[in-house]
């Protein structure tokens, strides 16, 4: 079982591990793909610079699935982390083993949130634009967000504070004033109200459903009202996100052509074969599927029917959230349909992450902040991280 793609020898007290979607000068970055095996970036990601500046040491690179679009890392080109047939997430294992204060990674398709939920950890996917994406391997730029996973809400918040802030090198980076809001100390306004989403595309199994009701009960015990709300248009988020993510992915990975860097086939007679064979040999099946799917969505024939429609659904979902936040302080949702994934699950359906993301896609597509605690997602309006952390801390207190 391979947790690290690189590991530094360090005895530092404040070790942070980053996942293999984050570019580092000191260590190679493969993004889980044979295409980038051994690739060494010429520059550090902005969050690496910020972590160094705040006195943290980078303890290594946690393995990820190919371009981080799978469930929890099972599509890594050099093998999945599996124990007893159960899929393990490298970042979560590193944290549980106490080898790092936190893991900072790129949440493309919800893998960070699913891993935190399934391993009883805390994670935060901050408001889109509050943490620079400079130096992250690009996949689905319109929604992917640098996220933090740790044992406690306090550790998550501490690392988020170190990496958040405006960055001129990222055109989508928000102003310093906006970013400062997610760093402020949080409290829960009384009387607080939370909506629990029911009727998602996939029905959670008994264990996952129990997590959700336990979390709701905990909130109620703390004087927060909990109301069940039907998912409504949120059920379209997965389909729309699959289109947007695949289209952007198709475009972003088209730069890996076997010419400038990365994997190059030995089997070619001309440039077309060089392109085709390099990509055929290096990319895995889930990635190839996403490339074809995204390419089709962007074709001039399908653009309006498919891609543009997905963009419009993104606005509909944002409006639906705005309506929810007019009434509720936070929205509670499962993070996954079951609390463990097995090898058999992926063998039965190799595209399972494109269905399982029905829980994570609503926040991915809208860029809203999410804190995972107690095995569930709490989604807030933009910059609501402090309040979401405060709710996670209620859960932590109850747990003790």
């Amino acid at each position, binding site marked *: 079982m391979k947790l690290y793609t690189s590991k530094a020898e360090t005895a530092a007290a404040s070790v942070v591990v980053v996942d293999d979607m984050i570019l580092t000068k000191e260590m190679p970055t493969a993004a889980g793909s044979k295409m980038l095996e051994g690739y060494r970036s010429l520059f550090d990601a902005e969050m690496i610079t910020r972590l160094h500046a705040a006195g943290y040491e980078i303890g290594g690179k946690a393995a990820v699935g190919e371009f981080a679009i799978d469930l929890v890392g099972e599509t890594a080109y050099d093998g999945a982390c599996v124990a007893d047939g159960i899929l393990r997430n490298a970042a979560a294992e590193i944290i549980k083993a106490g080898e790092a204060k936190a893991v900072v990674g790129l949440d493309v398709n919800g893998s960070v949130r699913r891993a935190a939920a399934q391993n009883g950890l805390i994670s935060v996917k901050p408001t889109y634009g509050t943490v620079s994406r400079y130096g992250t391997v690009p996949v689905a730029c319109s929604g992917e967000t640098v996220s933090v996973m740790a044992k406690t809400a306090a550790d998550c918040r501490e690392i988020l504070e170190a990496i958040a802030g405006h960055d001129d*090198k990222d055109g989508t980076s928000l102003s310093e004033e906006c970013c400062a809001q997610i760093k402020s100390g949080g409290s829960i306004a009384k009387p607080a109200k939370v909506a629990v989403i029911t009727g998602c595309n996939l029905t959670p199994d008994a264990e996952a459903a129990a997590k959700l009701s336990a979390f709701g009960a905990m909130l109620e015990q703390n004087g927060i009202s909990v109301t069940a709300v039907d998912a409504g248009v949120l059920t379209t988020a997965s389909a729309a996100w699959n289109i947007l993510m695949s289209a952007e992915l198709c*475009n972003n990975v088209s*730069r890996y*052509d076997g010419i400038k860097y990365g994997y190059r086939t030995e089997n070619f007679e001309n440039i077309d074969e060089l392109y085709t064979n390099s990509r055929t040999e290096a990319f895995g099946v889930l990635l190839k599927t996403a490339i074809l799917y995204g390419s089709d969505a*962007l074709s001039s024939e399908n*653009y309006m029917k498919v*891609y543009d429609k997905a963009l419009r659904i993104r606005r509909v979902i944002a409006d639906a959230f705005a309506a929810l936040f007019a009434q509720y302080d936070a929205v509670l949702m499962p993070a996954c349909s079951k609390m463990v994934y097995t090898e058999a699950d992926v063998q039965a359906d190799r595209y399972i992450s494109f269905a399982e993301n029905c829980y994570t896609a609503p926040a991915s597509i809208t860029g809203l902040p999410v804190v995972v605690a107690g095995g569930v997602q709490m989604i807030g309006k933009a910059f609501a991280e402090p309040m979401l952390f405060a709710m996670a801390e209620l859960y932590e207190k109850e747990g003790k």
Partner: protein
Amino acid sequence: MRYETVIGLEVHVELATESKIFCSCSAKFGAGPNEHVCPACCGMPGMLPVVNKRVVDLGMTAGMMLNCHINRTTTFDKKSYYYPDLPCAYQTTQWFAPVAVNGCVEIETSKGKKKVRIKQIHMEEDAGKLVHDIMPDTTHVDFNRTSVPLIEIVSQPDLSGAEEVIAYLERLHALLRFAKVSDCRWEQGSMRCDVNLSVRPEGSSELGVRTEMKNMNSLTAIARAIEYETARHIDALENGTEVLVQETRRWDDVKGKSYAMRNKETAGDYRYFPDPNVMPVVIDDAWYAAIEASLPELPEEKRARYISELGLSEYDAAQLTQSRALCDCFEDAVSVCGKAKDAANWINSEVMNILNARKMNFDMLHIDGKSLGALILLVADGKVGRANGKKVLAAMFDDTTIDPAVYAEENGLIVSHDTGMIDAVIKEAISSDPKAVADYKSGKEKAIMALFGKCMKQLKGNCDPQVLHTMLIDAIKATE
């Protein structure tokens, strides 16, 4: 049957920015291979595009110069295709909301004046360059040009032949250079043009089969290509020599023929979509007003003003308004010396001479117009002789920071008003050349030139020629 040609142009112009469109690499032409590159313009993962505001400034400027409507919210989109000179396998361009739309340009040909409509102007990044001749069977890639900012000016199919096309291109060339949008150098590829051409029976309102021609890098080549392609179309329609198909053709200027490009090079679906990493650029009123205020007078406006307000001749005004650099130099010089005719004269003769001698074009004129004005004053006031003034001017070309008065002083180029010294020089000249004196006295007036030259040389030119001439005649007359 009589036919008419219908032509629309796509003109690419590299913008005159210091740096590239999305990174801080230099956008200058002429560096060694891959010297102006960074991870961003080489398409390495993790770099994000940050729009160079100067590019939008110049895009707006071009739009306003060509009477376009400026889209106050303008967006960037990705265009996907595989080619080894395109490091990301996509080009960032403007597809959905280009910076400027619906403009027009007035041109003048032998048939009179005509308005050519502009469909749109969009901003985009250039691609790199493939180099095929370093090693056999090997192609090298130079990414210096990658992400150099361009605008593409798309006209409506309003042009009817080579003469109109050339007039249109020359007009664009003049307007864009005047507004300092681009240096528009065909030979360096900073101005390029694709020609969309079709032919139809005269009077018909339907368009014929259209072909697009690429790879023409001079006005002559464009004119030749249009004539060739028009003849090819008419021949096909008239004699059925071939069936016309909508295609992209490459112009071979050496052979004087166009060839269909391989389908592979042109076919394909570009899969345009909005670039999620570049936020829409919103042009507020202040920004719009600032660009509007920065627009230059048109060349013909300047020409008219130089004649009516500054009293220049038609010829001088026409010479100066060939180039924005000449106009700027002239106007700066006049602001200091207040002598428009002198300034025009200096630029159109002395400055031009130096430019020619140094094989520089007008746009490379770099001397400070204000210093030129100061020099003109020195000469007009008789403090520096005209010939020495040219020496100062030459020095100003070598070092633009020179103060003409200081330079003249330090290099002994100031006119002497010391008549005692002039007297002594004259006496010596007369005594050394009694023959010239005798010749002059016997009526050979030209003989004085030898004496005059000798004195001037002795005085290093620092003498008012009138004064020297008068004093010399007086001295000769005073000899026995």
